[in-house]
C-alpha cells in the first residue's frame, strides 16, 4: 500500500471509539473514557460565541445528507432574540442503507448528549428535542437512561455545572414517516401536525419550532461538535478532503465520517474514517468485498436517494463532491448498499420507486403524482408489459420533480428521482433487454396503456380500451403471477 493510501485499519476511530467497550452506553464508562470533560472545560472557559466560532472555522458540514455547513446554519440565528431558542436533534434516520445514528445512540448515547449540550450552549437553546424515529426502541431506552443519568450528574437541568446555562432535553418519538427527517417536516411533526415540509424562507433558524429560532442538526453532526471542541480545529481539518483553493464556494469535506456498508458484502456494518475514502475501499477493506465470491454490479453510494454507481465508478471519493462527479445526487449519508451481479436493476428500481411512493408526504403534486406514477409504470414493466417508451416517460417524470428542477418544497422528490435517472441512464441496455424479452409483442407500442399491469395486480381485471383495440382484440390483463405470494399483495 503506498503512502497516499494508509490502511483503513490504521485509522483511530473517534466517533466509534467507545463502541464495543463493555457498558459503553453508561455514564460511568463514558466518563471513565474522558466523557464530559469537554463540557466541563467549555462551560468554564468559553463563551457561546467562541463555541460557535470554533464550529464555523472547523468547516463541519451536516452529516444528515445535505452537507450544509453547520456553523453557517447556526449563524443564521438572530443574535438578539429574547428566546426561547430550540435545538432539534434529527434522529429520524430513515434513509435506506443508513444506520450510523442508531449505532451512536445505542452504543454511545452520552457522546450524542454531550454534543447536544455543547451545541445548545453555543446556540443559546434552552430546550432540545430529540426527534427519534419509532423504529429504534433500543436507542430510545439507552438515550432515556443517559438523559436521566445526565440530570443526576448535573449535566442537564438548571444551572448546569454551576454555570448560568440551563437546558432540558426531551425525546419525541416519531411514527414511522420518512419525511420527518426533512428538517421542517420534523418541526411540523413535533408541533403535532402532519409532517408537511415548510416553504423556506423563513428558515428554521429565524422561525422554526413553535415559531421560534430553531436549529435542526443530525445526531452524527452533534457528536462531531464534541470532538471539534476537544481535539481542536487542526485535528478536524487534517481529516478529509480540503476545500478546492481554486473554488471559493467549496467548503471542502473535512473531519471524520461514519460509513455504513450493507447489502451483498461479507461484513456489513458501520465504520469510521476520514471523509473522502474511495467507495471501492469502503466496500473491499471494511465491507470485506462482495459476498459469495461474486462481482459488484451497482452500488448505492449514500443512501437510496443518492442514486447508483456502476462497477466502473467505484473509485470516486466518498466526500461531498465525489458521487456528484459521476451523476449521483451527492454523498448523502454515506450509506453504501452493494448489489452483486445477480441483482436485477428492474427489481432495484421497483424497490426504490415503491419506497418513495410510500413515503412521499403528498403535499406537492409533482412528487405525490410523480412517485406514484413512476411506481405504477415500473410495476407494469416488471410484470412484463413494459414498452421502450416507458423508459423515456420515467425519465421525464424524474427530471421534472424536485428542488433542483424547482417544482417541490423539499428534496424528497430529488431523492426519488435520482435512482430512476441513474438506473435508467446507467443501465439502459438491461432495461431495454428486459422489456424486449418480457413483452416481445408490445415493446415498441406507443399508444396509451393502463398504468397498472393486471399481471402484477390480478385483483384488477383491466381492459383497455374498454371496447377493445383497433384490431378488435381486447387487451385483457393476464392473471399469471411472477411469484406465488405476490398475487395476494395489493399495490400500495
Amino acid at each position, binding site marked *: 500500500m503506498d503512502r497516499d493510501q494508509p490502511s483503513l485499519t490504521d485509522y483511530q476511530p473517534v466517533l466509534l471509539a467507545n463502541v464495543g467497550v463493555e457498558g459503553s452506553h453508561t455514564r460511568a464508562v463514558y466518563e471513565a473514557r474522558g466523557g464530559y470533560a469537554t463540557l466541563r472545560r467549555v462551560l468554564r472557559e468559553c463563551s457561546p460565541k467562541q463555541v460557535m466560532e470554533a464550529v464555523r472555522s472547523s468547516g463541519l458540514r451536516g452529516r444528515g445528507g445535505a452537507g450544509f455547513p453547520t456553523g453557517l446554519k447556526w449563524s443564521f440565528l438572530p443574535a438578539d432574540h429574547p428566546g426561547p431558542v430550540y435545538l432539534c436533534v434529527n434522529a429520524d434516520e430513515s434513509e435506506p442503507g443508513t444506520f450510523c*445514528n442508531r449505532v451512536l445512540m445505542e452504543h454511545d448515547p452520552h457522546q450524542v448528549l454531550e454534543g447536544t449540550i455543547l451545541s445548545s450552549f453555543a446556540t443559546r437553546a434552552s430546550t432540545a428535542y430529540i426527534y427519534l424515529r419509532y423504529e429504534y426502541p433500543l436507542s430510545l431506552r439507552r438515550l432515556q437512561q443517559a438523559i436521566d443519568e445526565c440530570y443526576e450528574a448535573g449535566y442537564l437541568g438548571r444551572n448546569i455545572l454551576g454555570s448560568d446555562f440551563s437546558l432540558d432535553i426531551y425525546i419525541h418519538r416519531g411514527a414511522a414517516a*420518512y419525511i420527518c427527517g426533512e428538517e421542517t417536516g420534523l418541526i411540523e411533526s413535533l408541533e*403535532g401536525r402532519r409532517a408537511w415540509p415548510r416553504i423556506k424562507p423563513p428558515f428554521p433558524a429565524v422561525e422554526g419550532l*413553535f415559531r421560534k429560532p430553531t436549529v435542526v442538526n443530525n445526531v452524527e453532526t452533534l457528536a462531531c461538535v464534541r470532538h471539534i471542541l476537544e481535539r481542536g480545529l487542526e485535528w478536524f481539518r487534517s481529516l478529509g478532503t480540503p476545500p478546492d483553493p481554486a473554488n471559493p464556494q467549496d467548503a471542502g469535506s473535512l473531519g471524520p465520517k461514519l460509513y455504513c456498508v*450493507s447489502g451483498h458484502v461479507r461484513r*456489513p456494518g458501520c465504520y469510521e474514517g476520514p471523509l473522502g475514502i474511495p467507495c471501492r475501499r469502503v466496500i473491499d477493506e471494511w465491507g470485506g468485498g462482495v459476498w459469495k465470491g461474486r462481482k459488484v454490479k451497482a452500488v448505492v453510494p449514500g443512501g437510496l436517494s443518492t442514486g447508483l454507481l456502476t462497477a466502473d465508478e467505484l473509485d470516486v471519493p466518498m466526500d461531498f463532491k465525489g458521487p456528484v462527479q459521476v451523476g449521483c445526487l451527492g454523498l448523502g449519508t454515506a450509506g453504501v*448498499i452493494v448489489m452483486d451481479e445477480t441483482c436485477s436493476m428492474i427489481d432495484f428500481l421497483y424497490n426504490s420507486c415503491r419506497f418513495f411512493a410510500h413515503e412521499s408526504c403528498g403535499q406537492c403534486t409533482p412528487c405525490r403524482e410523480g412517485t406514484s406514477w413512476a411506481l405504477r409504470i415500473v410495476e407494469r414493466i416488471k410484470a412484463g408489459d413494459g414498452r421502450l417508451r416507458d423508459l423515456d416517460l420515467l425519465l421525464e417524470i424524474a427530471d421534472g420533480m424536485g428542488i433542483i428542477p424547482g417544482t417541490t418544497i423539499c428534496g424528497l422528490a430529488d431523492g426519488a428521482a435520482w435512482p430512476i435517472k441513474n438506473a435508467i441512464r446507467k443501465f439502459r441496455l438491461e432495461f431495454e433487454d428486459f422489456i424486449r424479452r418480457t413483452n416481445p409483442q408490445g415493446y415498441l407500442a406507443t399508444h396509451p396503456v393502463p398504468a397498472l399491469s393486471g399481471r402484477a395486480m390480478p385483483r384488477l381485471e383491466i381492459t383497455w380500451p374498454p371496447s377493445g383495440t383497433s384490431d378488435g382484440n381486447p387487451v385483457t390483463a393476464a392473471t399469471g403471477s411472477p411469484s406465488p405470494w405476490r398475487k*395476494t399483495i395489493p399495490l400500495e
Partner: protein
Amino acid sequence: MAEQDSEQPIAPETEEAIRWLFGRYPTRRALVLPALHLIQERLGGVPAAAVRHLARILELPAPEIQDTLSFYGFFKQDGRIGRYRIWVCRSLSCAICGGEDLLGYLTEKLGIQPGQTTPDGLFTLEHAECLGACDFAPAVLVNEELYPKMDREKLDRLLAELAAPAHPATAGATNNA
C-alpha cells in the same frame, strides 16, 4: 353526538400520563403524537372516540387531531393491533438479502396481509420502510425488539415462542388493554 362525546375510552392513568407531559412543550398541540403513542400502546389502536376524548384533553378540535393521525399510517383506527406487531423490513438492503421473501412467507404462514391482524389477536403483520438495521439484513422488528439476520426457520421458531403461553413477554406485552 352528545352521547358519543361523553365517552371516555382513554383510561384515567393514560390521561394522567398525557398530562404529565404537558410541561415539556409550550403548546398542547405538540402533545398529539406522544399522546397518540400512549393511547395506542394501551388500547391497541386509536378509535374515533379516543380521538374525540383526546381532543377534550388537549383542548383542540378533534378534526385537527384526526388530520395528524391520518398522516401517520402507524396509528390504527379500525380494529386492534395484535399482541405482537411484526415489522418486516422491505427496503433495499433487506429486500436484496431476503426480506421480500420473508414478508411473503409471513403473509402465507399467518394468512393475513400486511396491515392485518390474525383472528386470534396475536400477530399484526406490517411491512417496514427501512428499519435502519441494514447491517442485520434481513431484519424484523417485533414490538420493541429487533431480530437480526432472520430467515424462515428463525421466523418459525420466533413465532412459536411468541405464541407459547409460557413466553415471558406474553404476560407483559405492550397491548394488553
